[in-house]
């Protein structure tokens, strides 16, 4: 078991661009941010943009999902890590690949046609709902919370209310 909260996982499909992440950096006191996105990691321009978005005293890496698994297993930093995932499904994959995650923060999952709102910022479709159910089955805690000052909202509970 990794130490509690040494890997703080947040799903936000705007990654850093929502600016919200700075509040989490403050509140968590992390120095390392990992962005996990196959798309972003393969777009050099996005990497440049992401890296320019954080203050210089923070380390930021942009990884693909595979790279994240590998980095967590091989190059785990000493301090806590804020892992920003673009997709919930990727986080599930992380769990299935042996990365020990006990909590997931859902910060932003954008609306698409046919999606149901779990909150103002979090929408789920088939894929997301399935991923959530799988995560619940694994005993991972998942809650909706845009900024640290928000109250925690149980994502599974909401899912049961809003998703048929």
């Amino acid at each position, binding site marked *: 078991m990794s130490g509690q909260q040494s890997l703080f996982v947040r799903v936000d499909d705007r990654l850093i661009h929502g*600016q919200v992440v700075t509040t989490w950096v403050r509140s968590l006191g992390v120095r390392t941010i990992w962005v996990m996105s196959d798309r972003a990691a393969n777009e050099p321009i996005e990497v440049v943009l992401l890296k320019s978005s954080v203050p210089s005293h923070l380390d930021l890496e942009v990884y693909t999902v595979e790279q994240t698994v590998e980095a967590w297993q091989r190059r785990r930093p000493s301090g806590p890590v804020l892992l920003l995932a673009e997709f919930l499904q990727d986080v599930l994959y992380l769990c299935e690949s042996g990365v020990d995650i006990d909590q997931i923060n859902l910060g932003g999952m954008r609306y698409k046609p046919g999606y149901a709102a779990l909150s103002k910022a979090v929408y789920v479709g088939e894929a997301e709902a399935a991923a959530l159910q799988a995560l619940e089955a694994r005993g991972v805690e998942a809650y909706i919370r845009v900024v640290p000052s928000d109250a925690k909202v149980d994502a599974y509970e909401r899912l049961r209310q809003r998703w048929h």
Partner: protein
Amino acid sequence: MSRRDTVLAAVVKLTRQRGAQTRASDGEGFTTAEIADVAGCLRANCSAELNALVRAGLLAKRRGRPVRYYLTGDGLASTGLSSLLGPVEGAVAPLKKTLTPARSDVSLRRPHLEDDFDWGVGAERSLRDAVQQAKMALTYPPHGMHILLLGETGVGKSSFSEKMHRYAASFGVLDEDAPLVAFNCAEYASNPEILLDQLFGHARGAYTGAHQDRPGLVERADGGMLFLDEVHRLPPQGQEMLFHLLDYGEFRRIGETEVWRKARVLLVAATTESPESALLATFRRRIPVVIRLPALRDWELRDRFDLIYHLCLEEARSLGRPLHLPGPSLDILLFSRFASNIGELKNTLKLACARAYNRTLSRRTDAAGQTPDARDHGSQEAIEILPEHLVIAPADGVNRPLFRTLMRSVDMRVDPGVDRPPSFPMMEADSIYVKLDRLGRTLQELGFATEEILDVLERELKRQRAPSGETPVSVDELRQFVGESFYSAVCRAWEEIDPEFPYPDTQAAFLRVAMHLFGVVRSDSTVSTAASSSRRSLFDIVEGVRKESPHAYQLSRKFLEAFETFSGVQLPPEETAIVAMLFRPSTPEQGKAVAIVVALFGDSVATEMVRTALQLVCDEDIAALNIPVQTPQDVMETMLNKTLETVDTTRGVLLLTNVPRLAELDGATVAGGVPIRAITRPDLHTVVTALHIHRDNRLELDDMASWLKAHNRSRSLPTPQTTRVVWACCLTGKGTARAVERLIREALPAELRGQVRVVAKELGPAQGPDLEPEANLAAVVGSINPGLVGVPFFSVETLFSREGISQLLGVLSLGQASAAPDRAHRETGDAEDSAPSSDPDASAAPVPDAGGSWSDQVVSAGGNQAGKSSTPSQSAAEPATEQDEMTARLEQHVYNLLKRNLVFVNPDLALGVVREMWRRIVQGTAESALNAALSPETYARFCLHTAYVIERCVRNEHVPHPYAGQIAARYPNEWHQLQAAWEPVQETFRVSVHPDELAYLFELVFSDHEVEVFQS
């Protein structure tokens, strides 16, 4: 009471007396002698006061001998009149009821079209015409005008009459406690005697069982408003009695023969009949004001949205529980047809609430094991109205598929304790809906009421002439614009000739013709007597067309004959020739055009730019060539040749490139004799411009090249903003031109509005080739192309497509004096290494342009930075190619991200305002304070982040910031600057910014300051 007041009161008294005693006017107004007599003062003094009152605007003089004075509208409703009348008892007292507002506190509120009376949902848009008409009719002196109220069943006629009654009372037209008597003539329609008895009452002994005198509703309505619903059910006899009442203010109870009784009623006669019906004709003759309430399906969606909210609120309040309508349910309410209008919508909703309520009850008892606690506890749980709760008649289930796909599903939550309507979810300014919205308003201004909507749409779509792939939106919009009956007349007439229609692109021709006819018919019906001189001069055209294209002429005649039959409109004979001309495509599409190749450094820059340009202008003969930066010089030409194989090079190649090696090819020939002209350092503007002039295939390669160069040069001139001119052209009558003019105006974004002048232009046959374009003419829009070289032409039908509008906007913003540094430089920029421009104006930040490229700003951000590293006066220094490329890629990337991530806010629009924000911030900030903030990356992040902030604001959300207050207190100047910079966002999106969001912006822009805050 001053003498002047006494004199005024005397006039008022006389007015009242005369109005009561006689209706035969013996010359309006009163002589000085009469007034002096009533006022009890000397005639000379009275005369002086009267003149003073005339100067004050309360009285008017009627010239003649003797001079007569009468109350003006101001005088009638004037301030202080009621207080003046206070001391005068007796004869003048009843006047208070009729002429003046009853309470002194309302006496200052003159009837006015812009008052704050609440007419309810839809008053500002869907019911605007009706409300304006009602106000005018009700405030018409002295007692308001009678009103004929038309509308389908359930459109809210009786509630509208209640509103009118309250309005009349609150503005003193009626007494405060004036009665509103409502009666439905259908109630006793089978028994006219009872009906008339109800209305007018009877005298004792009038008929068996009439044991005593009985007053009717008319008497009860005396001094107030009489609302007669289903007035077409009133028997002829009753009509006559009613008309006598309207004309003379007199009536008789049934059975009375001796006396005329008096009653002053303001009649509101309502009916669902079509106003053309024979029966209503008599009413129309007697009742001057006809107000038509639109059917629910003609309401603007936004109003319907509000209406649904208010109905839900009522339900929520009566149930004492919040309601929740998930998106699909709301969609059903928004888009179903509801043949019985608001009434049906209301019933559907009530029924759904009942069903949903039952479900929550039973579910809760199931789940909670019937514990009463659970029931209490859950009483604030929202009642969820699911689609299956909404029972829609099958015939009403006809949806509006276009609107539906355009509108994003949202939930609606209604809390019984809160009356705050959610904002309508459509925010994209260029979405079809918003455009329709604009069209609708334009239509209203034209005085045209849309009849029916979209129910035959499905059929129409299948009948589409254009092959698949074309969106049917233009037809849809046309339909909205011209109205259902007109549209179907055109359609049916068109069917007559459709099989033999000889020209390609039938749909475009159809749209052109329909639009033209609409203009003609409109102008004829509004200015019926205008003898059109331009028409006569069309004689030549008629002859010409008849000779040159006899087939089209035949076809046109056939079409117009059918159209006249279906529409009942009589058209002048010249129309045959005009329509025949409109049959043909507006621009000759045949013939080869010059090929365009965009060759730019970078792995995908050229592709991206071409792709973006093609979104603005559709074209074929354009190819993108990506030249990776490390490409060896000698390979470049080979790459170009390869690209040339993919395009038609018969008329030469226009090469837009930032690759020096390729730019050298200007004037050369390649690949076996293909002439090439090169334009250096193109940006998106250049590409779009090239595509525009490219469509005019009369232009030769050299013309295009020199025009583009000249265009680039003129763009870079540091002249102040000039007004761009757009011509709205049509062949005849100003109908089309004016309609087009309106359309363009409405389509312009706010920031362009002041800078674009739209001129309605009538093109006679004599004009044409030798027509002189006026200075700053940016575009011509119309049904016929005057063929001005270098001035892009847009046919009317392009205005009905999203692309068309954005193309036009693109052209309009092209010419704006946006002296971006790189552009100023480009003036000398044919050579690849020229000296930095020393033009002081060149550093001015560019004006944001709507719908066009947004590449300049980033380049200028880069340019500024480059400039800072040299000397301030050289702020327009040449940005390095790599930085160019970097910014180009960044901007494209940001744009892509926004397109992907923004849900409510239109990315183009957002970027436009964000750029303007950035410009303001950069302008207002000392360089030292900004530091690294000016890097292209920061600019890109700023764009991205601010766009997200706008989206949150639009959704009425914000992200809390822990130190917002501290930042504001510590850096008031910067804070204020950011607030000021928000202004363009406020103007465009109507949202203000939350301080917390501002704090994040602050951190982004003033990153140095931010650190200090942390350290302290």
